[in-house]
Structures are given as C-alpha cells and as structure tokens.
C-alpha cells in the first residue's frame, strides 16, 4: 500500500474540506517568470503562479528559498531596498503591478502586509490602528473604523478599555493581532503575511490561524511560513520553494518547485523534492 506523504508525518493534518477548485476562482495575482536579485545576486528566479481571490495561499520552503523575497514583491516592498531588482511581471487584476505609471504607495494601500516580528508603532493602541486611515485622510468615523478593525482582528474585547495605552504594553500575540488590525483598517483587498506567527507562542499562533480562516471571507491572504503544519492547516493553495545551488558559480537561488491545492502538496505531491520536504527528509 502506498502511504501518502501526510500519513507518514505525525502532526500534519490535511484539510479535506477542500474548497471549490482554483479553476473557477477569480485570479488576483498572475505572476509570470519573476526573478528578483539583490545587488546582482539572484535570490529568486523564474517563478510563475496565480493567486486566487478569497483563498489563503501559503509559500513554504527551507530558509533561503526566497519565499520572503517573493511575498515582498506583491506590495513592492522590495522597492525600498536600493539594490533590489525585479524582473518578470506580476499582474494584479490584469494590471501590471510594476508598470511605469503605477505608484507603489497606492499599491500598498490595496495590498496590506503583516511582518514576521510584530512591529507596532511606539504609539497608543488607538493611534496604531488609526495610523493608516489618517495617512489616507479617512478622518470620518475614525472611531468606528478603528473599532471595526480591532473586532475583525479579534482584539477588541481585550483592548477596548485601554485604547489610549501604549501598544508596547500588549503581549507579543496581541501586538501581532494589532498589526493585523492596523493592516485591515485601511480596507485592503489582499493581506500579505510574512511568517506572522513565527515569533509567537502556540496559543497565539492558533488565534492567528483562526483569524486567517475568518478573514479570507473578505480578503485574499498570502502567507509565508516555514511551519508546514501551519500551511496544511490554513492554506487552500500551497507553493513549495526550494534552493537551487549552482556549484560552479557558488550561487544559490530560490525556485518554485510545485504549486497546487494544499491537500495535494501534502498527500500526493508530484515532485520528489516536495515529497522529501513535506515528509521531513530534507529541510
């Protein structure tokens, strides 16, 4: 009997309530042959995939496989690194995200991001969530907007009595949910999460994962994680990245190995390298 990959790894449960197939879904991002380099050294090369609306899409892979580099392309955060160059195309609803006339500031209003380490501003809880709306000039109904964002991030009940206190008085897990609320407050369409739970304890991690399940009804979520169980639990689609080493030139670059429905990646991957990784033989 052939065992599927997942059955061989204890602790990995694969969701079987697989949502309707990607074929019918609206495409939010269409990535075509994307290559990213830092100072001429390629970090990621030749990636093509599609990200679907109201899905959680996970990027997994070993350290150095370029998954964080990749996610930072979707809201043009790599623009902030002077030595970074991005080649290839990312279409956002059919529009070139890196087009000449596209303003990266505008892009980031539509595509929010949550970072690996909680990074609340050294301001009050309220001011953290209100920051985005204020920058965008959305001053009307600010209180309601802040409240709504905190409720969506499942943080309202914990902080409603101390909105004026410093955000740094919150626990790590609360800080991360605050950062999620902060991203939600500007009503983006997509939320990118770069290892959002890697600095958190298991209970906080569970809360963040539950949250993603909730949020995907309204938002499209892209998440980087190197916790495979997490990808298996939360993601509808999973992309496995790996590192390709060119011995001759002593160069390492990230490549996309396989991209499919999460259950397929974990139970019946097409590529040997994916199977090795998800069964724990590598990485």
């Amino acid at each position, binding site marked *: 009997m052939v065992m599927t990959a997942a059955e061989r790894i204890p602790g990995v449960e694969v969701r079987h309530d697989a949502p309707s197939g990607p074929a019918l879904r609206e495409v939010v991002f269409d990535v075509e042959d994307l290559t990213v380099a830092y100072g001429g050294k390629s970090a990621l090369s030749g990636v093509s995939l599609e990200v679907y609306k109201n899905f959680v899409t996970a990027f997994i892979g070993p350290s150095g496989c370029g998954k964080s580099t990749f996610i930072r392309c979707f809201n043009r955060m790599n623009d902030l690194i*002077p030595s970074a160059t991005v080649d290839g195309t990312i279409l956002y609803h059919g529009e070139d995200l890196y087009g000449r006339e596209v303003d990266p*500031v505008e892009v980031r*209003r539509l595509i929010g991001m949550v970072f690996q380490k909680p990074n609340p*501003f*050294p*301001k009050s809880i309220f001011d953290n969530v209100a920051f985005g709306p204020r920058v965008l000039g959305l001053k009307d109904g600010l209180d309601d907007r802040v409240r709504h964002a905190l409720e969506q991030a499942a943080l309202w009940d914990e902080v409603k009595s101390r909105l004026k206190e410093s955000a*740094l008085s919150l626990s790590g897990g609360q800080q991360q949910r605050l950062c999620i609320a902060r991203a939600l407050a*500007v009503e983006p369409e997509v939320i990118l999460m770069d290892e959002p739970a890697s600095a958190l304890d298991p209970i906080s991690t569970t809360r963040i994962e539950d949250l993603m399940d909730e949020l995907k009804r309204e938002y499209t979520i892209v998440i980087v994680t190197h916790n495979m169980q997490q990808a298996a639990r939360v993601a509808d689609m999973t992309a496995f990245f790996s590192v390709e080493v060119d011995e001759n030139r002593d160069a390492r670059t990230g490549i996309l190995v396989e991209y499919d429905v999460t259950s397929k990646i974990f139970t019946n991957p097409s590529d040997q390298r994916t199977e090795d990784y998800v069964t724990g033989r590598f990485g």
Partner: protein
Amino acid sequence: MQAAAPRLRVHRRRWGEGVVKGALALCALVSIATTIGIVAALLEPSLEFFREVSLVDFFSGTDWAPLFEPARFGVLPLIVGTLSVTFWAVVVAVPFGLGAAIYLSEYARPGVRKALKPALEVLAGVPTVVYGYFALVTFTPFLRSLGLDVQIFNAFSAGVVMGIMIIPTVASISEDAMNAVPQSLRDGAYALGSNKLEVSVRIVVPAAISGIVASFVLGISRAVGETMIALLAAGQLAQLTFVPFEPVETMTAFIAATGIGDVPTGSIEYKTIFAVGLTLFVMTLAMNLFAIRLVRKYREVYE
C-alpha cells in the same frame, strides 16, 4: 573510592578588576568634581557681589554700566542680548539641522550620506573666531547690500551665523537618533501606504524625539554659551532691545571683554564677572533640566 567532586574555587579577590573599576570611577569623578569646583568658584565672589548689590536691583535693573561712574548693575540688557542672539541662532539651526538630519537619515542614498555627513561635521570643527569674522566682515555687509538698515554690530548677524555654526551639531545628533529607529517601524508604515515624508514625520521623528530634543538643547546651550561670535559681531553695547539689527552685549561677551581688561582683583567690577557667570550657569542648567523633563514626557519608547 569515589572520585572527588569538582569544587568551585574559593572566591579570591581579583585585584586587577578592582583597579580598573577604581580608575573608571575616577574618570567619572573628574567631570563631576570639576563641575562642583566651578560652582564653588562662581558662588563665592558672586555672594560677595550680592552683598553689595541687591538681587532685586540686579535682576530688575534695565541699565548695565558696571565699569562707569555711577555704576549701574541691571543685568536685564545682557540677558535680553543673550536671548536675542540665541533666538536667531535657534531659528536658523533647528529647521536646517532637523531638515538636514531627515534628509541624511531618510532620503539620501548610502553613498551620498557617506560623503555628506563627514562634510557636515567638518563645519563643526571650524574655529568660532572664523565664524565671528565671517559674521562681521561678510554677513553684515551682505545684509547692508540688500538695503537693510543694519548696524555694523548687531544681534541678527551674530545669531544667524551662530545658527549656521550649530547646524552640524543638531543635524549629526538628530541623524544618529533617527538612524537608530528600527527599520521594521518604517516598513510597517510603508506597508500601510505611507509615502516617505509621512514615514519620516509621523514615525521616525516621533520615535527619535528624545535624541532630537537633546540635539536642540545641546545646540541652544552652545548658542547661549558662545562667546567669540557674540563678541565680534553683536557688539558690546548693553542696551535693552529686541530689535535684531541693533548692537547688543551678551553675557558671555561681557565676561570675556571684562575678564581680559584691567579690572583689579577683588573689586566690585571683578565680582560682577562672577555674578554674570553664575546667572549664565543657572540659565543653562534650568534649560537642560526642562529639556530632560520634556523628553521624558514625550518620548516614544520603541521595543
């Protein structure tokens, strides 16, 4: 037989460490002891001075002529002269210094910053006497060439040039403080759709405010204590005026000019120097204390 359990050695005093500690403590003490010494040295002649001139006369008198007959000891003209010059210095140094710091920290590319910051710091190394002459022989005539009714010695020229002198201090310390703000905070703000100016003004400056205010205070302290520029360019006419284009005498200029003159030791004129010095000292001390409180109140602690 059991092997002997390893035993930690009996604690022995490490003499070397004690010596190092003592030497370092001495270093710290030198500056504190010097400060106490200065205060003591200022205090004694000042107290003698105030036995002869009442505090009320000193601080409320509007006429300053300690070296003439009849001597008058109203210090207000000197205080106003100092404040007036300092005011113009601050008007120049704070916006330009902060602007330069924001540019260097947030806008300049690494190569540009690497070249610009040392260049800016060279400005801080120019002797103040050079600035003083620059104010007197270049800046004031320039103002006159614009058709302004400016006296040869005036508070404005001295203040503006003093401000230019202080820009590097303000810029350098502020830039250090801004540079220390974690990149993750900037990323967080950029990810919310902020542009560079919004990130600089709403995130970086508030997070670095304690360092920025410290740079202001240091700059103001330098302006209040600056002697050479004031002496050369602001004049030595102790008149009670806020008019920028009129000559004034600052406290430092009075001290320097009178100190190198031929005032007999122990005379009332001699003690006047110390009374003015003590006033200056108290003013800067009060300002520093105020600034520390201000910083504590508004500082945003990150991490």
